[in-house]
């Protein structure tokens, strides 16, 4: 029986090659999108999962008076609570603030994604050792444990355990190799060094052993069954007891299972996810799968007419309804299965691209079990969506009706199928509209006048480990040396790069006429006299700082500061006290965008104190980028041979502010393309079937003198109507969704009706092009021929 079914199914696929291909291909594309999305979503929802995940917590420091929430805690806290509280089974600390400098074959570089950790880090988070163990790591401070790929980078294929690495001018022994971090881990580190190594630096040790400094992230593992709130109270008691001098900053705990979706931490070192994003993206995955399945359902019901004869014969030769139901269920399972196999191949092929898009690192082989699981679920849901309705419809034919020639067109459920097409186009139009809105906003960001010039500027920072005198000396000499280079147009120093300025101070300023209750948070920028020229800032009034020291205490404000601080007019010459330094307002700079456009530009004080500065910005003359970079390198090596140079371009820094948004824009574009491609594939084959059913009618109409145009519009009218309805339904939904999205930006475009109109026009055009392929072919066909085949 199975063989018989299989053979009919297979021969049916072959007989309608084009539509079968479209059917299976569309389904595979939809399934691929869904599988990748679900893989990602599953990964997000299972972050940091391990068997005892529920027992592990991270401590959070809260400073309620100023609203600070940190994920770091004092160094000594972990040890104190472990010894004082029997409820705490284990603690593990993490420090990623200090970047070790690694030297490899004479090259210096920062060990990015290197972490300083405790002995118990590896047992807390169940690391599996490929080679070596923690024993020697714990016993010797100058030890390092590498991930597999980092080990390969240093030692190629040689056995790394026992070898040494030159880090911060000390030799560190490699003690073990662990696998690379899995994509669902918050701890995406490449190497681990003991905290005890960090503490061999007496300055760091003295600083960190102070209970007022919170530089370590502390994880605790509670004994099974211990209540989290009680443990929190006890930990706070310990803090009160130990941190005598401190203000008793309270801590709270967050479960490891909740950490990934944590939202309240300021400047987290971990990559956090967003529950809403996961939800929305999963929803889109489901919708893409749905529209792919709709194609299958629509095509099989459209094909029903062609299959009616077979169904009837089977019935008459003795097939029961359940036999036929099984047959068609089996057929859709076969199709879904073939699609699932193709999906796995497509997933394998597109995984690297997907990784690039999501910034994750899924490995096909490693993810295979999860992939199979996800594909299985996708297969089953598509199978269910695909099978029930067509199978019911097909098995319900009454054979005498078919043999009597009652046309199957009456049997086909037109409204149902039209409804499904509308759903497909609603999804497509929403995604196209979203793509357009996001694209417009991204374009707006790129084209907005920032108030400074971001191209051809390279910036780098002096290390914060050198002392103030040396730093101030370097600021001067390196600037001189750089200016001497012909590839360098100008050089300026500041306390931070201006693309994204985080430094701010509350209640640090005073001025004549200040409302005493007003303690505004003001962004602060320390610069030298060349900053305005180098960055191409515009002045609204007054002047910039002078080259001599006469402006040492004076400030320049931005326009927003002038407005929001209610400075008395005329502003220039007014007294202004900043951080206890009394001077004058010498100029008002036009507002420039010193933050991402998600945030509002607030008041800004620009001052002239050299002690603050450690950032260089070098404007390159003309297009001598290569020469300028070489010059920067030479100057750096000459002055700071022991430190690696890290530079970046201002426009790169600018783009980085919008990494997430760029990702959203790419993903939406891809989703929109998939949706519209699958939907038009569906329309393509529906029209093909329509033409097949109506060959005779078309032939007769032509003989009666209908023009080609008339026949094409007759075939298109229905679909055009459907797409039009979809646009009407989709537009308000898209408007609502995109309105929500664009609220994320303070500086944004207005959402206009024409964006939805364009989305509609795009969907309509694609549909029309799709239809006309078939329709024109049918309309041009020789009517005599088509009538003869009837």
């Amino acid at each position, binding site marked *: 029986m199975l063989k018989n079914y299989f053979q009919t199914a297979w021969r049916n696929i072959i007989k309608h090659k084009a539509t079968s291909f479209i059917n299976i291909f569309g389904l595979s594309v939809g399934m691929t999108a869904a599988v990748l999305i679900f893989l990602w979503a599953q990964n997000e929802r299972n972050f940091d999962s391990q068997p005892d995940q529920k027992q592990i917590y991270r401590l959070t420091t809260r400073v309620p008076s100023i609203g600070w929430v940190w994920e770091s805690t004092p160094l000594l806290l972990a040890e104190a609570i472990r010894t004082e509280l029997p409820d705490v089974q284990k603690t593990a600390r993490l420090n990623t603030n200090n970047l070790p400098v690694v030297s490899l074959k004479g090259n210096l570089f920062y060990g990015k994604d290197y972490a300083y950790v405790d002995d118990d880090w590896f047992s807390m988070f169940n690391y599996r050792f490929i080679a070596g163990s923690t024993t020697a790591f714990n016993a010797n401070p100058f030890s390092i444990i590498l991930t597999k790929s980092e080990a390969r980078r240093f030692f190629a294929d040689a056995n790394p355990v026992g070898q040494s690495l030159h880090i911060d001018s000390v030799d560190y022994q490699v003690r073990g190799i662990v696998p690379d971090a899995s994509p669902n881990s918050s701890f995406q580190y490449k190497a681990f060094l003991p905290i005890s190594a960090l503490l061999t630096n007496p300055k760091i040790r003295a600083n960190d052993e102070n209970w007022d400094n919170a530089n370590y992230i502390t994880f605790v593992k509670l004994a099974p069954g211990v209540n989290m709130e009680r443990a929190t109270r006890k930990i706070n008691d310990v803090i009160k007891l130990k941190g005598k001098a401190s203000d008793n900053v309270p801590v709270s705990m967050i479960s490891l299972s909740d950490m990934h979706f944590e939202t309240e931490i300021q400047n987290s070192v971990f990559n956090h996810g967003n529950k809403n994003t996961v939800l929305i993206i999963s929803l889109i995955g489901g919708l893409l799968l749905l529209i792919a399945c709709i194609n299958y359902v629509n095509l099989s019901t459209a094909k029903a007419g062609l299959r009616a004869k*077979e169904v009837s*014969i089977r019935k008459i030769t003795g097939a029961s309804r359940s036999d036929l139901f099984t047959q068609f269920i089996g057929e859709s399972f076969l199709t879904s299965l073939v699609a699932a196999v193709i999906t796995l191949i497509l997933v394998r092929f597109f995984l690297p691209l997907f990784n690039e898009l999501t910034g994750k690192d899924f490995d096909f082989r490693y993810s295979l079990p999860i992939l199979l699981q996800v594909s299985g679920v996708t297969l089953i849901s598509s199978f269910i969506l695909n099978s029930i309705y067509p199978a019911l419809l097909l098995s319900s034919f009454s054979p005498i009706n078919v043999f009597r020639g009652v046309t199957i067109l009456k049997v086909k459920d037109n409204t149902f199928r039209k409804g499904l097409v509308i759903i497909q186009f609603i999804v497509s139009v929403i995604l196209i509209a979203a793509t357009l809105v996001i694209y417009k906003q991204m374009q707006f960001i790129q084209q907005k006048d920032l108030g400074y010039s971001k191209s051809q500027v390279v910036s780098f920072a002096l290390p914060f480990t050198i002392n103030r005198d040396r730093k101030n000396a370097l600021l001067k000499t390196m600037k001189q040396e750089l200016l001497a280079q012909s590839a360098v147009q100008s050089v300026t120093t500041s306390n931070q790069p201006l693309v994204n300025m985080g430094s701010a101070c509350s209640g640090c300023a005073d001025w004549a006429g200040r409302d005493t209750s007003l303690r505004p948070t003001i962004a602060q920028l320390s610069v030298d006299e060349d900053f305005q020229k180098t960055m191409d800032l515009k002045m609204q009034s007054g002047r910039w700082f002078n080259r001599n020291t006469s402006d040492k205490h004076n400030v320049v404000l931005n326009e927003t500061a002038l407005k929001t601080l209610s400075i008395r007019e005329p502003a220039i010459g007014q007294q202004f006290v900043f951080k206890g330094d009394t001077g004058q307002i010498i100029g008002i700079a036009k507002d420039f965008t010193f933050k991402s456009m998600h945030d509002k530009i607030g008041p800004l004080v620009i001052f002239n104190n050299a002690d603050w500065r450690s950032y260089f910005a070098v404007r390159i003359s003309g297009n001598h980028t290569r020469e300028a970079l070489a010059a920067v390198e030479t100057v750096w090596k000459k002055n700071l041979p022991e430190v690696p140079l890290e530079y970046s371009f201002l426009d790169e820094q600018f783009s980085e502010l919008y990494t997430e948004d760029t990702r959203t824009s790419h993903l939406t574009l891809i989703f929109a393309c998939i949706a519209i491609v699958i939907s038009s594939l569906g329309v393509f084959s529906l029209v093909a079937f329509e033409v097949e059913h109506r060959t005779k009618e078309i032939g007769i109409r032509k003989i009666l003198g209908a023009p080609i145009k008339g026949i094409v519009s007759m075939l298109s009218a229905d679909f055009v109507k459907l797409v039009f309805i979809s646009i009407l339904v989709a537009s308000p939904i898209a408007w609502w969704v995109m309105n929500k999205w664009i609220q994320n930006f303070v500086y944004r475009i207005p959402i206009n009706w024409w964006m939805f109109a364009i989305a509609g026009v795009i969907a309509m055009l694609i549909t029309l092009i799709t239809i006309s392929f078939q329709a024109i072919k049918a309309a041009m066909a020789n009517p005599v021929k088509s009538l003869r085949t009837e």
Partner: protein
Amino acid sequence: MIALKNIFKWYNVGGNRNFILKDINLDIQQGEFISIMGPSGSGKSTLLNIIGMLDEASEGTYIFQDQEVFRLKEKQRSQLYKDYIGFVFQAYHLIDELTVYENIETPLIYKDMKSSERKAIVADILDRFGIVGKKDLFPNQLSGGQQQLVGIARALASKPKLILADEPTGNLNSKQGEEIMELFKQLNKEDGITIIQVTHSEKNAAYGSRIINLLDGRIDTNTTL
């Protein structure tokens, strides 16, 4: 074997009853070979479909092998025709996607027969009809006469007691038609299979043992040859 009593069949067309069959009374014995004749639209196919249980009468009683057909449940009824009845159509109605062999095999599949058993039966029939060489061809690779031969072979595969044939030679030339009629006669004589055929041709009708003439849904004449 078959007893039809006061069979009426009508369709409601715009509130009016449109009678297709009017008061049909008919007894058919096992082993008969009956030809139904009559002008187009006189209700021949409808009558045949009712006998074949593909259609239901609007009124009346139908007894098949001592069972009252219209009282049976859908399942029992399809079991009944699965076991006893084979159909042959004017348009052959073979499954285009299956080969000759597979077409003949299909009814056996729905009888839940073992594969080895099926093989034996199909091989036997192919042999008997002399179409062994065509077993792997698809219907559209055969001539009309050959297709109808396969159609009959398929009807015979499930070893029916009754064969219902609606204009089996309608699409064939006279030579092919003659061959089919000879085959029917042989099946009727040698295997004792009851045959009811609808035909327009006097010559073909004469192969049977009785001719029933329908006119406007009534039995006009009922002649035993």
